């Protein structure tokens, strides 16, 4: 700037290449920002895809419920006008049964009706067997008389080519709406089987729909249709009034009398929307029934108990970690550095040792034929007959998890206590405080941030623990995470697992936010 001419001194300052200094600094800053982002981008992308996307998927799954409206699209629409009316409603009309008939015929061919059955079985027991039974029965209904009557009337009704010509005609979906819809199902079935539509004889379920379409319209409406095979259709319209009819409602009730029950229809209706709060309601021991939200029966209320137990046991574990970790951290921070580094290894060794090693060690120590019981028996403190039960219960889980999580309490506590100047306590004592007062009024308040950091860390870790409760928890010492794992791998109720996981995640994130407030994410230290 020394060689700046007087004329530029009044204007903006310029950098070496003549651009205003302010602008050139902005450009440099922007370049720096972009470079930093470019360095971060690959990892950010990686974490977003490999970690954040799965979490988002889980959140989505906890409300997703498209299976009902995808498998039974027509039934769901037909049910819209039907009300459950606290179980006093009559079963829905013939229209709904007709819709169900086509939906189930398609689902049975595509082999998806059992999946829907198991999905609805989570809400109302018996649904799974009902759908399996109906899937077997739907092809054997008496509805074949329609096909026979149409074909007797005109053999062209048996010819795939005539059907294709009719169904491809413009405006047919207005004349024969239900038939057209059933025809699209038929097309999807054939595509899934890799069959040619021109060679396969039309399936039975098309004819009842054709019958229903035709009886509904007055003859002149059908006569207005002038596409291919109009004569065949007109002849059929003229004849259908004399056809022998079959009630689909009766056919379904024949297969299983549950189809007359408003409960079943209410459940289908209640879970017909593509998104549902049902899983979340189940996670808090409520239930979405046709009549609205109800409490689960007493015997099935386990989730609140499990959440409560998880929180309670995490508190106990956190408490015992504070109790055991505080003296150690105090000792470490008041010893000369050389000694404390040596003792710190005793804390870090368990920290570095595999979780399964530590869990198996506790299994070895605590079991009834284990080391601790053996020693007690040898010493004569416990009779051989009544050895202590210390594993597969809450006690075992608490002991093992306290041991596993203790380093996570000691390390943050130690790093806080190291920064407390010893002169404060000395000053307090020289002013006449007793040992206890000096500790409680001067030292302890300064160590509280360490307790806070350690407690939240231990609490966050323990409420999501799976392995240790699974191995040493038995039935009374298991956590909510064990239930999540059970729903993923055994009961296959993924939606419920996702909802339970979402609730747990929400709790953890709130705690994480608190932790960030107290300690800061950047200040997490690793020994």
């Amino acid at each position, binding site marked *: 700037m020394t060689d700046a001419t007087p004329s530029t001194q009044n204007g903006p300052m310029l950098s070496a290449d003549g651009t205003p200094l302010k602008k050139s600094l902005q450009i440099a800053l922007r370049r720096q920002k972009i*470079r930093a982002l470019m*360095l*971060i981008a690959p990892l950010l992308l990686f974490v977003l895809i490999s970690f954040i996307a*799965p*979490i988002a998927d889980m959140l989505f799954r906890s409300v997703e419920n498209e299976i009902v409206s995808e498998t039974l699209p027509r039934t769901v629409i037909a049910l819209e006008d039907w009300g459950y009316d606290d179980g006093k409603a009559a079963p829905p009309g013939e229209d709904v049964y007709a819709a169900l008939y086509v939906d189930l015929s398609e689902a049975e061919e595509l082999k998806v009706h059992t999946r829907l059955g198991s999905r609805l079985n989570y809400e109302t027991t018996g649904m799974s067997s009902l759908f399996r039974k109906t899937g077997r029965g739907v092809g054997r209904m008496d509805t074949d008389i329609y096909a026979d009557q149409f074909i007797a009337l005109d053999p062209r009704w048996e010819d795939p080519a005539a059907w294709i010509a009719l169904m491809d005609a413009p405006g047919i979906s207005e004349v024969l709406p239900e038939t057209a819809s059933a025809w699209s199902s038929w097309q999807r079935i054939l595509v899934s089987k890799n069959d040619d539509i021109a060679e396969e004889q039309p399936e039975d379920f098309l004819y009842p729909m054709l019958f229903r379409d035709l009886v509904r319209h007055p003859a002149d409406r059908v006569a207005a249709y002038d596409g291919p095979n109009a004569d065949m259709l007109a002849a059929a319209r003229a004849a259908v009034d004399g056809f022998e009819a079959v009630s689909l409602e009766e056919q379904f009730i024949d297969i299983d009398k549950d189809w007359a029950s408003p409960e079943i229809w209410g459940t289908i209706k209640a879970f017909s929307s593509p998104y549902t709060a049902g899983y979340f309601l189940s996670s808090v021991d409520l239930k979405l029934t046709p009549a609205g939200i109800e409490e689960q029966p007493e015997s099935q209320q386990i989730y609140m108990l499990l959440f409560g137990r998880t929180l309670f046991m995490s508190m106990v574990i956190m408490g015992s970690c504070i109790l055991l970790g505080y003296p150690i951290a105090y000792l470490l921070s008041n010893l000369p550095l050389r000694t404390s580094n040596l003792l710190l290894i005793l804390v870090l060794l368990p920290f570095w*040792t595999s979780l399964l090693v530590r869990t*198996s060690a506790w299994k070895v120590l605590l079991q009834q034929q284990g080391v601790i019981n053996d020693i007690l028996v040898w010493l004569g403190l416990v009779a051989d007959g009544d050895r202590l039960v210390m594993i597969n219960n809450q006690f075992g889980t608490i002991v093992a998890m306290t041991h596993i999580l203790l380093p996570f309490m000691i390390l943050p506590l130690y790093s806080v206590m190291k920064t407390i100047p010893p002169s404060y306590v000395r000053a307090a004592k020289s002013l006449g405080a007793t040992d206890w007062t000096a500790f409680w009024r001067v030292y302890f308040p300064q160590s509280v941030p360490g307790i806070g950091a350690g407690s939240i860390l231990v609490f966050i870790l323990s409420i999501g623990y799976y392995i240790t409760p699974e191995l040493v928890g038995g039935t009374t010492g298991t956590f909510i995470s064990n239930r999540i794992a059970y729903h993923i791998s055994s009961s296959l109720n993924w939606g419920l697992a996702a909802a339970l996981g979402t609730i747990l995640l929400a709790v*953890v994130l709130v705690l994480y936010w608190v932790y960030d407030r107290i300690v800061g994410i950047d200040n997490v230290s690793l020994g």
Partner: protein
Amino acid sequence: MRKFKKPAVDLIRFVLPLMALAGAGFGFLVGTANDAPFIGLLLGALCGAVLSLVLAKFVPSPRAGIAAATVLFALAGFALAGTGGLIGGAVIGFVLGWLSYWLATGRYRAGTPVYATPLQVLWHNTFKFICAAIFFFLIAPIVTVIPLSFNAENFFTFTPAMLSFDPEGYSLKHYRDFFTNPDWQQALANSVQIAPAATLISVTLGTLAAIGLSQPHVPFRRAIMAILISPMIVPLIISAAGMYFFYSRIGLQGTYIGVVLAHAALGIPFVIITVTATLVGFDQSLTRAAANMGADPVTTFFRVQMPLILPGVISGGLFAFITSFDEVVVVLFVGSAGQKTLPWQMFTGLREQISPTILAVATILVVISILLLTLVELLRRRSERLRGLSPG
């Protein structure tokens, strides 16, 4: 200034009763094991008192005294209960001998100021004792596993043969099983294939991102940091569930690549944390100096920045490695039988067919973790020295 005189220790009124008490404790333990608790109690008290009297009066050298007590009690133990008794007796003798001198020479006051009241001294020693007990709680379970892994029987506890130090009671058969059993070997091979690949991904991407994050101007720094650290905060079971759902959607569930990706994501926070911590002390003027002398950014990175942050990168890598190597929840869900890792095999072993081979594996893993711990500690010191944070 008046010099405080060390208060003398009263042998008869202070040391002897305490030693009798300690002896009584040991005597009671030995007595109950031999079905005569009361006699053991009395004999033990007598032994403790007499020992301390003799040591204090006639053996001024602590080292000789403790050795003598150890040998004496060991011989008595051997006469009473063979080899096991020998060891037990030696331990009791050593403890009693040491305790006697500790009390008699006033060393129990060592950590307290001379003006401390007896109550303060008592509390000081109780506190030390409590801490020792907690350290015992931390270490004992891990240490117990090691001798048990040499058990000759298929038991999870000490057999009488082991307690009497009979060589027959010990064997390497569980280690032999580990090294010959195809299940365990397959699990080991899988672990060895998955962990390094996951570590490589986390370290490369993590180091780059950490360098980016430690630049002075980073937009959305907090949000980005929160996302990158999240795999460490989200409970494993939730990560596992989410990954299971998502990876089965995109066909990665049950594949080697799926497990590696999942483990790499879990290891990333550790790399980010350690490397950013190292970069906090990094002097940015060094890179400017390098650039000033004509080095391009790549040369600057590899010749100037990398050697200085290398300890942090390696210890981050070790953390990522151990995360993957120890991880079991995510692999249980994301992996299939073909990706069964060592921890998975241990998990099923513990849950279903309990075999002491697990203890042999556990011992091997403890040894590995001791090695890793040493390595990380050395790296940390080297890093602090390089950055001039500590004089050592």
